[in-house]
């Protein structure tokens, strides 16, 4: 018999499918397809949500409007001296460059100067200066002090005795800022780094900023600015402005050579001037004129300019963010205190709620008859578990804060959350206790153990995985709780110091950051921490229950 014969035989032996069975098979396949589709859809949505939160939480990606373009200068030429100046900072400062206006503010301490204004790092600025280098020092001072007060400057800066001393002291002082001649900037120690300066602005004729047909040139992206100066933009309306031809103004042909000598044709009009006065006057007087000029000239000459959007991206959720203490309502620094507060809140909530909850569950399961009272009690706990948390918050505010006089603070919020999570703990402990086989109790009692001994030594250990699950659910609820805390915990972002100290926890911090528009990036970073925390809590459930179960499992 050949192989084909075998196959034929086999086929003839199979039972012919009836129309009924074919229909059932078809239904089966369709149902399976639908189920698979919805499963995949749900998973995709979940992954997308968590992924989005994580990406936004970990990376920031913003267009920030600055008065100056993104062009950075490491060494800055001075007016009357041949040597360039280099600004240096302590390496702990997480800035690489700064707009020139910011640099001047740092030296003048117009406000309580802090690096936080520039990089969200809560670090006081300590400016250093050296006046012993003759005309170079004077020139730097002039550069820094354009239009500012010499007296304030002298009062604020710390004088150093030499350039070496300057480098040394900047390296020693966190948040330090200083300057040295470019020739000394070679081989700086690791504790010191160069702070580049951005001081080129996009100066335009006032005509460009007119409003026409509801359109106005408010700001320009760096890409558009680059396009503008490569000569490809003929009319302002091409990059979001009004209908006005573009004229590029250059100081002299050397400046202009960067675009004129290129292979690509220059479409925009070009105007080259040879003196400072001509430069400014042609910008002001030519309709649609645009030029690159120093930021200082905007102030001194009263010129118009277009802010430039700089695309900034980087890590949002950094170790710094986790380990630094918050400052300025959470705009600067990190969330370390807030994470600690969250843990304290969880800890005390669990300390208060677990014994009460477990004892209540033991009473309900082991000591009462399953009668009418029990049904009412059970209904009560279930209703409490379903009440919106803001109602609990209201209750906590009226009862603990007002009537008990505990004030807005840690103890009020802990007690309110305890009340809120108690039903969860009672219900899950009850279920856990009920699931302990009656034979365990009988076995223990038959050995002459009392009821209490039986409960403590046999029933509770056997029920502990279930009870722990309930506790962890309660932790999850505590971590995510916001509404209660708005009313009872206040909004202080310091570390909790006592029962009546107001504080913030992560969820509340997130709410404050967002609702007070303090920082969108930080809101997402906090959210990401919360997601991770909840993830850890859930995973730890599995681990803990496994660990507890070790004796119980085979």
């Amino acid at each position: 018999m050949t192989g084909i014969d075998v196959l034929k035989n086999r086929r003839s032996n199979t039972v012919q499918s009836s129309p009924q069975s074919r229909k059932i098979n078809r239904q089966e396949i369709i149902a399976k397809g639908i189920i698979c589709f919805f499963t995949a859809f749900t998973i995709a949505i979940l992954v997308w949500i968590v992924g989005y939160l994580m990406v936004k939480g970990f990376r920031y990606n913003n267009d920030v409007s600055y008065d100056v373009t993104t062009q950075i200068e490491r060494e800055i030429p001075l007016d009357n001296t041949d040597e360039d100046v280099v600004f240096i900072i302590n390496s702990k400062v997480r800035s690489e460059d700064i707009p020139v206006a910011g640099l001047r503010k740092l030296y003048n301490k117009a406000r309580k100067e802090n690096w936080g204004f520039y990089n969200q790092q809560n670090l006081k600025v300590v400016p250093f200066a050296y006046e012993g280098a003759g005309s170079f020092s004077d020139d730097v001072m002039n550069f820094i002090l354009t239009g500012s007060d010499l007296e304030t400057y002298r009062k604020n800066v710390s004088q150093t005795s030499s350039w070496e001393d300057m480098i040394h002291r900047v390296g020693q002082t966190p948040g330090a800022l200083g300057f040295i001649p470019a020739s000394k900037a070679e081989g700086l120690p690791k504790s010191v780094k160069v702070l580049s300066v951005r001081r080129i602005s996009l100066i335009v004729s006032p005509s460009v900023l007119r409003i026409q047909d509801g359109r106005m040139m408010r700001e320009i992206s760096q890409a558009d600015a680059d396009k503008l100066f490569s000569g490809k933009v003929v009319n302002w309306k091409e990059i979001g402005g009004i209908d006005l031809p573009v004229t590029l103004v250059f100081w002299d042909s050397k400046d202009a050579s960067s675009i004129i000598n290129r292979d690509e044709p220059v479409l925009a009009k070009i105007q080259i001037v040879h003196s400072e006065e001509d430069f400014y006057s042609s910008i002001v007087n030519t309709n649609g004129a645009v030029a690159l000029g120093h930021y200082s000239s905007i102030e001194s000459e009263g010129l118009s300019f277009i802010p430039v959007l700089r695309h900034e991206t980087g890590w949002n959720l950094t170790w710094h963010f986790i380990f630094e203490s918050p400052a300025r309502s959470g705009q600067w620094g990190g969330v370390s205190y807030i994470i600690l507060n969250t843990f304290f809140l969880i800890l005390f909530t669990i300390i208060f709620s677990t014994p009460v909850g477990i004892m209540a569950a033991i009473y309900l399961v082991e000591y009462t008859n399953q009668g009418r009272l029990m049904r009412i009690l059970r209904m009560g706990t279930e209703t409490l578990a379903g009440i919106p948390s803001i109602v609990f918050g209201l209750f906590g505010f009226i009862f603990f804060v007002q009537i008990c006089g505990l004030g807005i603070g840690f103890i009020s919020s802990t007690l309110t959350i305890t009340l809120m999570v108690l039903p969860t703990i009672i219900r899950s402990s009850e279920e856990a206790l009920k699931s302990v086989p009656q034979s365990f109790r009988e076995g223990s009692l038959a050995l002459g153990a009392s009821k209490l001994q039986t409960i403590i030594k046999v029933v509770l250990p056997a029920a502990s995985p279930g009870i722990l699950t309930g506790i962890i659910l309660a932790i999850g609820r505590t971590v995510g709780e916001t509404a209660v805390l708005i009313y009872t915990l206040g909004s202080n972002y310091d570390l909790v110091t006592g029962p009546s100290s107001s504080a913030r926890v992560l969820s509340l911090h997130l709410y404050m950051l967002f609702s007070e528009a303090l920082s969108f990036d930080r809101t997402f970073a906090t959210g990401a921490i919360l997601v991770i925390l909840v993830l850890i809590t859930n995973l730890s459930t599995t681990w803990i229950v496994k660990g507890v179960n070790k004796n119980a499992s085979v």
Partner: protein
Amino acid sequence: METNKIAVNKLNLFYGDFQALHDINIEIKEKEVTALIGPSGCGKSTFIRTLNRMNDLIDIVKIDGTIQYDAMDIYKQWDLIELRKKVGMVFQKPNPFPMSIYDNIAYGPRTHGIKSRQKLNNIVENSLDQASLLDEVKDRLHKPALGLSGGQQQRLCIARVLAVEPDVVLMDEPTSALDPISTSRIEDLIDELKKSYTIVIVTHNMQQAGRISDKTAFFLHGKIEEFGGTDQIFFNPVSSKTEAYISGKFG
């Protein structure tokens, strides 16, 4: 020389309105194996559970009549905990606690206040030895008891009962959940234990009752139909119902 360990007099037991036991009178002698046989639902398990007051756990149970253990009424004169120490019980399904083998055995002595490590070690070893389980588990005393086989678990439960030094051991169908080999080991064990303990055993298995017991009580519809020496019950029953049951005509 043979004294009455347990004397039951006119015992009636009610589950709510349902009367489960009618006028039970039985005397259980010291160091004998008394088997309780009978069809399902005849009340033999209910009866054995009253002997160490396990029925107290069920709220609706009401009892009248007297049960005396060592000539003292178990409801009026015996302290419940002392009674249960003296009258231990092995259940139908092996029910080791979710702890280690050692802790299972030491549980009873510990609850009765023995703390000395040395004493506990001795008790655990002796009890396991008596339950002929020691050789199988001595290398894994601190492993979970639930990892043992069903037969081993049941012997562990017996050892656990022996650890509190009882006088009477009640066994409620101890082999019904076990395979034949485990069953025969438990039967051997019962034979061994009979030398030092009074044993009351409920069984569905008449051959088992015949093999291991000295006296047999046949329960039917909540009454003791016949009670006597095992040989007499099996080979020379007085009641025709006993004969019918033993010869397999019903049950």
